[in-house]
């Protein structure tokens, strides 16, 4: 039983890495990265847990009652916030990569060069030409 949190954390990290390595969709890949991060939540809370102890809130308990480690809970709380921010940032990058490259497949990803910007300028200039013809 004492090895179960570590085993579950290792399994989650491994299956997340497998998903990242075999993913064919950037949005699916970001979800697999979230699974890798949930492995760290399970590992930290499993490290700080003690059997038969209370939550570290001493409002209705006398001080000195055995409680679980509150430092690990603070670390996990920070980790959750960082994970949500990382997910938002990677999803924005995914949308930009889809706009520039036209695909969500990591195999078809081309390097983002300045050429993409120049092509976009050409497209906007074509749009300006079209507007000039109609007016």
């Amino acid at each position, binding site marked *: 039983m004492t090895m179960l949190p570590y085993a579950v954390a290792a399994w*989650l990290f491994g299956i997340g890495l497998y998903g990242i390595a075999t993913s064919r969709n950037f949005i699916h890949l970001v979800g697999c990265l979230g699974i890798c991060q949930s492995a760290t939540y399970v590992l930290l809370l499993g490290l700080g847990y003690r059997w038969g102890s209370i939550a570290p809130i001493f409002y209705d308990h006398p001080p000195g009652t055995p409680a679980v480690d509150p430092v690990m809970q603070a670390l996990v709380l920070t980790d959750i916030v960082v994970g949500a921010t990382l997910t*938002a940032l990677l999803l924005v990058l995914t949308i930009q990569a889809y706009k520039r490259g036209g695909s969500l497949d990591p195999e078809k990803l081309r390097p983002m060069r300045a050429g993409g910007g120049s092509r976009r300028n050409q497209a906007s200039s074509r749009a300006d030409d079209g507007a000039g013809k109609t007016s």
Partner: protein
Amino acid sequence: MTVILPLLFLLTAISGTAVVLVRDPVRQVFAIAVNGLVLAILFDALQAPDVALSELTVGAAAVPLLFLVALMAVRTQPPEEKP
């Protein structure tokens, strides 16, 4: 009580595996929400109620909404040029 905690750990492993193995991103959003809910229940069983509340808000509501917004943006906005 000694049965609930290993059961929740196994449920966490199963739901995490489901998130990876569901390859369709639209269906994966539901798997991510279920995984966040299972993690919140596990954290509450591990005597971490503040982390459970945070995970319930972020993992079961905010992150699936972010994925839905990303899927909507990808579906409605065509790429700028075809390769």
